[in-house]
């Protein structure tokens, strides 16, 4: 299949997750909604169910969720609740609600109260001390709770063998996505910013094995392309989410390619894999412990500014000339981390621009001006 055809297929999924959900239900599958961040999708797959990521919506308007949330509440979380309240997600069989940031923690309770008996809500509290033995044990205990709840929904036990198989499936998915990020950065003529996002976003909606198989095909096609002769600019994107096609169209209109990303919805969550042998629950806990360089994760060496240095390294290694930061309004962790990131970027002589965004934005005139001007600066 040609690159364009494959990209269009990913785009179709990315733009219509509701259709995908309905299709899975029509096929008799059970589907579990997975909120950000770090929920072990492996457990859902091992239970024979389909995990579907919930990352808000670029199309819906917040109305019903306002009953539960203050105006400054993260729009990704508000829109997730909105879709649970307005019936969009009525077909789900359950939902996992991680609580790693100050917004998601109360949101997990809002969702539980709002859903009542309608939808099983599986609470997941990751530990911030994720590396010491007691932290690892805490993660295992939490995941064991999630596992038990998923088993109830699936009506079957999750065996170690099935879990090891699910880990393999997810490792393959993460590896294919990492490879795609690299190839898309090398061949921006073939993969626009809009379609790059669609490929990565669709991984949250499609069954992982199916997504991986298709993505491996695409990667093979991209790898076979002759070396790129890109005349435009290249940037690294950073932030929680950057998946609005209208916003990304501004990149394409101004000849700006995304060389790589430090975006939670795209690369931040797929940087490490789990061991495919040994105790699979411990392997999942170890994978979480191995996660790093994320604004949401505790860093024992925070005074060393390791995360910002990592992002600087990413910019340099990807061949990006600058960084575009999408600051999700009003995301405390991202806002608080920004001065450290700015300091490291300035020290390395890397230009950057910070754009305030949220999922209720429909007009990107100001972002367009800033991105176009940024291209002139690079």
């Amino acid at each position: 299949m040609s690159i364009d055809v494959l990209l269009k297929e990913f785009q179709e999924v990315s733009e219509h997750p509701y259709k995908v959900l309905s299709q899975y239900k029509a096929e008799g599958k059970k589907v579990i909604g997975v909120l950000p961040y770090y929920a072990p999708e492996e457990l859902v797959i091992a239970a024979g169910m389909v995990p579907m990521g919930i990352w808000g919506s670029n199309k819906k308007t917040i109305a019903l969720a306002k009953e539960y949330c203050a105006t400054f509440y993260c729009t990704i979380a508000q829109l997730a609740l909105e879709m649970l309240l307005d019936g969009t997600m009525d077909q789900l069989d359950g939902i996992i609600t991680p609580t790693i940031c100050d917004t998601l923690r109360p949101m997990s309770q809002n969702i539980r109260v709002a859903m009542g008996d309608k939808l099983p809500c599986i609470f997941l509290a990751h530990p911030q001390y994720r590396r010491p033995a007691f932290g690892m044990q805490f993660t295992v205990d939490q995941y064991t709770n999630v596992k038990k709840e998923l088993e109830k929904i699936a009506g079957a036990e999750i065996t170690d063998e099935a879990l090891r198989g699910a880990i393999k499936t997810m490792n393959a998915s993460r590896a294919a996505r990492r490879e795609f990020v690299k190839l898309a950065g090398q061949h921006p003529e073939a993969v626009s910013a809009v379609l790059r996002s669609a490929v990565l976003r669709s991984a949250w909606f499609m069954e992982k094995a199916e997504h991986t198989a298709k993505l491996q095909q695409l990667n093979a096609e991209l790898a076979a392309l002759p070396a790129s002769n890109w005349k435009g600019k290249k940037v690294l994107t950073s932030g929680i989410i950057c998946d609005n096609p209208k916003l990304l169209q501004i990149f394409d209109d101004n000849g700006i390619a995304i060389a790589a990303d430090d975006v939670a919805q795209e690369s931040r969550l797929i940087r490490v894999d789990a061991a495919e042998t040994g105790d699979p629950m411990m392997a999942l806990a170890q994978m979480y412990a191995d996660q790093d360089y994320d604004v949401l994760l505790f860093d024992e060496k925070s005074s060393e500014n390791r995360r910002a240095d990592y992002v600087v390294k990413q910019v340099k290694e990807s061949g990006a000339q600058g960084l575009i930061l999408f600051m999700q309004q009003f995301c405390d962790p991202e806002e608080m981390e920004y001065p450290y990131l700015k300091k490291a970027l300035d020290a390395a002589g890397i230009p950057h621009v910070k754009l305030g965004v949220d999922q209720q934005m429909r007009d990107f005139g100001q972002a367009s001006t800033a991105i176009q001007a940024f291209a002139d600066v690079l």
Partner: protein
Amino acid sequence: MSIYTLGIDIGSTASKCVMLKDGRDIVSKSLIAVGAGTSGPQRAIAQVLESAGMKREDMDYVLATGYGRNSLEGVADHQMSELSCHGKGAAFLFPEVHTVIDIGGQDVKVLQVENGVMTNFVMNDKCAAGTGRFLDVMARVLEVKVEDLGTLGAQSTKYVGISSTCTVFAESEVISQLAMDTDKRDIINGIHKSVASRVAGLAHRVGIRDQVVMTGGVAQNTGVVKALEEALGHTIHTSPLTQYNGALGAALFGYQRYLKEHQA
């Protein structure tokens, strides 16, 4: 033979045009006080051509900028962001410029300029506080003309604090002050300081280096300029062409692009 370039700056509240001869001499200019999405752009273009006695076909290059820059397909040869154009225009008017503060209708931008080229910038977030719109709203509440704010504020004798966080809340504060019979001139002075503190906060993010130049319609308000000078501790330079600065930059870029295309 002379080269004529036309810069068109379609802002959110005004449409401005500048026609240049040989990238150096201003032949004519026009300003219509309505911007993107109105008849303003077409009227401004018609006016600038008419006062020069020329036609669109006589223009060697037309470059559009501003919020409505994408709406001129078929008229403009190219479009560029107004940040780049403001940097260019300011460097033409003030060759020693290093910082440009542009307060427009709905945006505040602070630019760092090195050797006439923009090297860094910051913009306000999606918020009207500190913008021209903020002053428009306040002038309406105070029942004065926006162009009289500078003169009236200069007559203030007492400090009145007005919030710089939010236009809506600041408007309520102004209404409360009016209800308490506070002198309008003192309120206006407080509003100017409020705008200045907001803009100064943004400006410090890119760093302030002399010469500091202020452009955009709000630069005509002497009260804001003075309050900003106090807040920044730097002298601010303005030009009678302040509102035309973006269009001037566009015409200059148009001249550069024309030369580049015709040399190639």
